[in-house]
């Protein structure tokens, strides 16, 4: 069942120099229980998408076009009141600096109780307490730590508490924006395993945003690769990461160093992403693309299908040529 369907979404920021188009005609969908990862480098628009899906865009940003269908609602038309009701209950978010998102002078369990009470005023105290205990079990925080203050938790525990808070109201979708960036590699591994487990147990959908493609590959079954405000490739993780087609995805994967990487690989350089205020072209990667041709400047690329689930935003003949050359 399709939980979220985003169609032709564009989001812009008003700046002194003009309108900055951070998200440019983006479409994707998520089924209930599946996880979708957004990968890309700074400025590609992935965080803006996360904020849009939570109704947390700053004052100078707005949805320029497009629809966000979540079950029966169209989120692109929501006002503040509707968002306040919706947020936390249907969709919840785990932020980048989540460890600082907890109030340092309130005990951890009370913060989660507050989150539940806000959206479920009809529940009794014992019901809520029971729920909190279950949540902490789910994220593997020992029961005797429930009454501690945030500063008494380690970095990893704080993050797990944040995840528990995000799950408190049984949201259908969780948006995680770089949740493990500030954590050590060993703790990060624990958290990712935790997220995988929870997702399977509760059948929650996850939108996972990160610049670290290996982390996304760990958690997400489906991937969207973004560059300069556009999605350049989407598909199942095996498809995108094992057989990438878009030139940017290929470079992104080559740039990623793993423990098995070849010491002597040479990765071509890519130019800085286009200025999203003045950019009027069709393909944001054109300036750095090795298969860019005259067609790319005059025509808008389309979705080239490699399989039912795997697509790249380019021209078919260009992609075929690239494949043959390599």
């Amino acid at each position, binding site marked *: 069942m399709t939980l979220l369907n985003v169609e032709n979404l564009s989001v812009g*920021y*008003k*700046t*002194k*120099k003009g309108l*900055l188009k*951070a998200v440019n005609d983006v479409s994707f969908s998520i089924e209930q229980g599946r996880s979708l990862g957004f990968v890309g480098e700074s*400025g590609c628009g992935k*965080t*803006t998408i996360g904020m849009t899906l939570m109704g947390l865009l*700053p004052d*100078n*940003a707005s949805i320029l076009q497009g629809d966000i269908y979540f079950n029966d609602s169209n989120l692109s038309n929501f006002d503040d009141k509707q968002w306040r009701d919706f947020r936390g209950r249907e969709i919840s978010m785990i932020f980048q600096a989540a460890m600082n998102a907890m109030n340092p002078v309130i005990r951890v369990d009370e913060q989660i109780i507050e989150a539940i009470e806000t959206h479920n005023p009809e529940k009794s105290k014992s019901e809520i307490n029971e729920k909190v205990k279950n949540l902490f079990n789910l994220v593997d925080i020992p029961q005797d730590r429930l009454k501690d203050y945030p500063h008494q938790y380690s970095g990893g525990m704080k993050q797990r508490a944040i995840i528990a808070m995000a799950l408190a109201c049984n949201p259908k979708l969780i948006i995680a924006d770089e949740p493990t960036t500030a954590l050590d590699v060993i703790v990060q591994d624990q958290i990712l395993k935790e997220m995988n487990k929870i997702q399977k147990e509760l059948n929650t959908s996850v939108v996972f945003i990160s610049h670290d493609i290996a982390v996304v590959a760990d958690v997400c079954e489906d991937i969207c690769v973004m560059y300069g405000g556009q999605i350049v490739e989407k598909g199942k993780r095996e498809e995108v990461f094992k057989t990438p087609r878009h030139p940017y995805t290929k470079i992104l994967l080559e740039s990623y160093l793993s423990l098995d990487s070849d010491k002597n690989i040479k990765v071509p350089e890519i130019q800085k992403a286009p200025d999203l205020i003045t950019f009027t072209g069709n393909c944001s990667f054109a300036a750095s693309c090795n298969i860019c041709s005259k067609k790319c400047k005059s025509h808008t690329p389309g979705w080239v299908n490699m399989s039912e689930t795997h697509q790249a935003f380019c021209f078919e003949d260009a992609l075929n040529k690239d494949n043959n050359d390599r």
Partner: protein
Amino acid sequence: MSQNQYIERFKKGWKIFIQNPLGKTGVTLLIIFMLMAISSFFIPLIDPMYDPMTGIDPLIKTSTGPSMQHFLGTDNVGRDLFAQLMEGAKIAFIVGLSSAFISIVLGTVIGMISGYAGGMTDIILMRTADIIMIMPSLVILLILASLFGQFNIWIIVFIIAIMRWPAVSRIIRSQTLSLKSRPFIEASKVAGASNLRIIFRHIMPNVLPLAFLYMTFRVTSAILVEAALSFLGFGDPSQVSWGMMLQWVWKSGHMFQAPYWMIPPGLCISLLTLSFYMLGRAMDEVLDPRLRKEEEGR
């Protein structure tokens, strides 16, 4: 080539500054007063009768009200009040700006050295600053004046500056402390730069904007102190400042009979200090990006 950068920043700062209502008003007032100060050079040249100090109108023996020859009237000796007001503007600027400038220079250098060196140097300098700060400057000046007789205007300027540098140095010191541990300062250290070089080449450009901001506040206080001194009779008797004008109106017993004499200098003192204050507040917006109205998106 840092000139280019300064010009760029100045232009950007100016745009923000001039859009701020306080900035607009402040600059307008300031320009009016500057014109007054400049014109004080020319008035005696037009007609020596209008010299603020010595220009006595032979036809007038007492204080008179506004008339065609004397726009604001004359004082009790027959000198033109309007000319005196212009001259007062000149004195206010000179005193205000020079004293502010000296205290800023002193305060910035001491603040930077204190913040950067730390340790004993910091303690000694800051305790000295504390001691000077708690001394009531006006009272000290009065005591000194009564001990040494009337002061020359430049001595007054200098003493005001000496009393005022501590406040500047505290601010500059905190700024220096926060800059001290920034990576680009450490990078200079690693390159082998001497402490002196780091202070003047790296820290100073970063604290100068703040120093200029505080200069505007120093100007207002200097003008007020000079006015107070002159009013109390301890100013430089050879200079016609607004405070001096107020002293004369009071001394000659015309305080409540000659509003045309008393009000203009008092008004001018208030307006000039207000305009510098507005300048300072508008500068706040220029220097602190968080106060600006528009932000750029991510």
